């Protein structure tokens, strides 16, 4: 009689979520007495909304979105943080004359919205660049779709990419790394925590739930560590779970390799310093900060502590 857990991912089935699929495939969840359902995400599926409606027990979400939701009255709590560092960056054409962040002024930039725009906006406000596209020295922001076409078609000078995904696609399109200039958010000091596990605060009062989550996190981290060590096999597992059949082996193996760099060094425990840095980035959003005040109780070590023992 296994406990049922539903996990809502932030995006489509890909190596970005390899740890969970590995745990499922290798039976780690089963061993922990869990019956886990993984719901892939997709464009415009907001994991925060899914968990609010009771459609999932636990979600993978970026911390900016989770904290913003918390401020909007949806009390999400980070219970684990498998991703130690951020994979987000801005990728620009080198030949248009962008060398440093200040050169971004007066350019057209592609940005993801849907709650993923927060780190970008914070960065721009730290740089003192307006984002209205009208005033002198501001940038024109486009809501970029789900692919790297805006860059390849030169509709934008720079676009948002993840180290593990879109950047690889640009390279696959025949562009050599030398043609590109990249700004990693980690390097710019505006990195925010990505891909943490979040649950509803009220559920944490239930010891049975806490126990369930502890087992879940432990099994998931076991999956992550296995994935880091066996990137190719992990990628193939992900591929098997992809119902669209659209992912390619080559791309997933490369993605797993890049993801492993981000999960490296995390045992699932949230690093309070990284948390603090994220919060400060979000609070520092200039005139339009993502969150207005320091959140409280937005994370807990209870689960990871229990999981790691």
């Amino acid at each position, binding site marked *: 009689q296994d406990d049922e857990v539903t996990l809502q991912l932030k995006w489509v089935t890909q190596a970005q979520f390899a740890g969970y699929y590995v745990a499922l495939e290798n039976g780690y969840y089963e061993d922990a007495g869990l019956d886990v359902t993984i719901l892939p995400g997709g*464009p*415009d599926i*907001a994991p*925060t*909304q899914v968990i*609010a*409606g009771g459609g999932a027990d636990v979600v993978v979400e970026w911390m900016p*979105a989770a904290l*913003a*939701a918390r401020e*909007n*009255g*949806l009390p999400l709590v980070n219970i684990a943080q498998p991703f130690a560092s951020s994979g987000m960056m801005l990728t620009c054409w080198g030949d248009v004359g962008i060398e440093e962040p200040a050169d971004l002024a007066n350019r057209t930039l592609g940005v993801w*919205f*849907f*709650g*993923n*725009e927060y780190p970008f906006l914070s960065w721009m406000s730290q740089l003192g660049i307006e*984002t209205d*596209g009208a005033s002198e020295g501001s940038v*024109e*922001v*486009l*809501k*970029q*779709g*789900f*692919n790297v*076409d*805006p860059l390849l*078609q030169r*509709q934008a000078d720079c676009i948002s990419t993840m180290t593990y995904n879109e950047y690889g696609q640009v390279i696959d399109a025949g562009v050599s790394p030398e043609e590109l200039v990249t700004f990693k958010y980690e390097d710019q000091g505006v990195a925010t925590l990505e891909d943490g596990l979040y649950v509803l605060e009220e559920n944490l009062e239930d010891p049975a739930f806490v126990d369930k989550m502890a087992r879940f996190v432990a099994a998931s981290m076991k999956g992550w560590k296995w994935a880091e060590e066996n990137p190719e096999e992990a990628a193939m597992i992900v591929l098997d779970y992809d119902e669209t059949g659209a992912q390619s082996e080559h791309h997933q193996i490369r993605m797993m390799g890049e993801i492993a760099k981000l999960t490296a060094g995390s045992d699932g425990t949230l690093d309070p310093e990284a948390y603090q840095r994220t919060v400060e980035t979000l609070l520092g959003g200039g005139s339009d900060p993502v969150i207005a005040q320091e959140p409280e109780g937005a994370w807990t070590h209870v689960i990871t502590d229990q999981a790691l023992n």
Partner: protein
Amino acid sequence: MSYVVFAFVLWAIGFAINLQLAGGPAQRSAAARLAIPLIFGATLLAMWELLVRGLEVPTVILPPPSQIGATFAANTSILWGDFVQTILKGALSGYLMGCAAAVLVALLVDRYDYLRRGLLPLGNFMAALPIVGTAPILVMWFGFGWQSKAAVVVLMVFFPMLVNTVAGLSDTSAMQRDLMRTYAASWPQTLLKLRLPAALPFIFNGLKICSTLALIGAIVAEFFGSPTQGLGFRISTSIGQLNLGMVWSAIVVSALAGTAFYGLVALLERRATFWHASQRK
């Protein structure tokens, strides 16, 4: 729980009023025809409000109308900007271009039977292309601005309009055409004096169908890339921010605009085809 009970009581009251109105002596009056749907709509809204509160539905799943109203009122300038971007720039320009092109092609198709037999089956096939699939392509081709939205709209309205206009142009009785033959009327004369007027009801039917299509097309296209403005952008972005009040406000704008647009075309139709049986009572 009492909210829920109250909701159904309210429903019963609204229904009773409408029963009265519809069965009463005023049933044919314009006022009743307006009041009944409005009362119905109002009861629906009230029930929505009460049920959401009574059943404690999380507002990030479904906000009550009062919250939507408040958000709407507080963000009128943003919503106006979105309206201009999506409806006026994207939908309207695409609508005009698409419908005009369709009517012109319809005239060609109508003139040359070979074209009709070749193009219409193909047109029906093309019309079946789901635009959600074409939108990313068109955004790639025409950029992030309103032009790609207009292109999606053109593609969306062109075939329904074409099919309607072609049907309309051939909706003349054999007798009416024979009459023109006995006058030895030329093709342009027949077109101008018989076929175009006879086609008007069909053309307007097409215009009406296309009015809602245009709106939907423009909004959907924004999901695949847009400037930081527009109803589609607003909806998508606000969901991500869990700002459901804003999502629904944008939907309200779209529904209002769509209904007004449809109503306007229907009004024009009444004016232009007052003579048609469907417009007379």
